[in-house]
């Protein structure tokens, strides 16, 4: 029995801004998947089974580059590795869900779902399975539909360069990189990965610039002194 405010329809209402924000990327994924040599069915299958926007974009970028299959799978894994932390953090809040519901809920753990669920728990609202799925299902169903619609229209576009479509992924990834800028040692990591990927691109060749450049950034993060996180009171003192 759920009170109003903890149920499926409250979750569905809470999902609307995320559905709107994700729509262009869902459509873009479908169109770019076609541009990179996937079929319409494969594009829809990828959105329905992988269901992780950034990693899907990375995946199709590598499909287009004809790299080894294991490297595509590994790159998707690398981009999605942050979800390990999401599931560790949110798992503690899922006490209301029995095991199989938890297992199902984790499938839908995309970035905005994690953010909304954490924010809800933070406000002291119960993280019910009904609310969680009310939020998850609209985002998921539309994401899959958008891949299909985008793929249908994407195959109609003959010259994607004129519309800049071939370059949108780079802009999108730049935006994602900037989105992480509040993290510890972000700038040294980004500088190391930039240099590493450009050098690897020149001297080793694509697609190794992805793994070698990424490794350069991670190594720098491990070597740098650990960030001392001041407690909020301390931070307030510094800023005032």
């Amino acid at each position: 029995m759920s009170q109003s405010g903890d149920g499926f329809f409250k979750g569905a209402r809470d999902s609307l801004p995320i559905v709107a924000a994700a729509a262009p990327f869902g459509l873009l994924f479908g169109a770019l998947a076609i541009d990179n040599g996937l079929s319409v069915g494969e594009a829809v299958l990828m959105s329905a089974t992988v269901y992780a926007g950034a990693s899907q974009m990375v995946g199709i970028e590598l499909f287009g580059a004809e790299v080894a299959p294991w490297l595509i799978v590994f790159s998707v894994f690398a981009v999605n590795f942050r979800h390990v932390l999401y599931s560790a953090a949110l798992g503690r809040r899922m006490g209301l869900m029995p095991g199989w519901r938890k297992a199902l809920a984790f499938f839908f753990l995309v970035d905005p779902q994690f953010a909304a669920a954490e924010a809800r728990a933070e406000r002291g609202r119960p993280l019910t399975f009904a609310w969680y799925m009310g939020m998850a299902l609209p985002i998921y169903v539309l994401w899959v539909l958008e891949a299909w619609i985008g793929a249908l229209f994407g195959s109609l576009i003959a010259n994607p360069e004129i519309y800049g479509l071939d370059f949108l992924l780079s802009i999108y990834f730049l935006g994602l990189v900037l989105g992480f800028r509040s993290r510890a040692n972000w700038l040294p990591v980004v500088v190391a990965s930039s240099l590493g990927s450009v050098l690897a691109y020149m001297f080793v060749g694509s697609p190794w610039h992805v793994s070698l450049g990424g490794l350069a950034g991670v190594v720098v993060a491990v070597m740098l002194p650990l960030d001392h996180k001041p407690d909020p009171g301390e931070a307030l003192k510094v800023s005032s």
Partner: protein
Amino acid sequence: MSGAWSSVPINIWIILGAAIVTYATRVGGYLVLSRFKRIPPRVDAALNAVPAAVLTTLVAPAAVFGGGAEALTLFLCLIIGLRVPLMGMFAIGWMLIIALRAAGL
């Protein structure tokens, strides 16, 4: 990508492999990391760096080897993106690349 294994196209196997490793990341943190009292700080630092480190490698070569319109678009987006949310920066960047390419840069 072409080729097939056991009459299923290789693309399907890649997609299913990607789906399995993605689900593994979504359930793995709960299954593994929640058993530790806390994550070792260096491991935590490495994990935190992964997304920015990997995504950067997909942008930097495009900026360096892509061409004038591409480099200028990414540079302007970098500045815009520090002030404007992702969707806004993305829309502006899309207009910039169309305009700069049309201008023959």
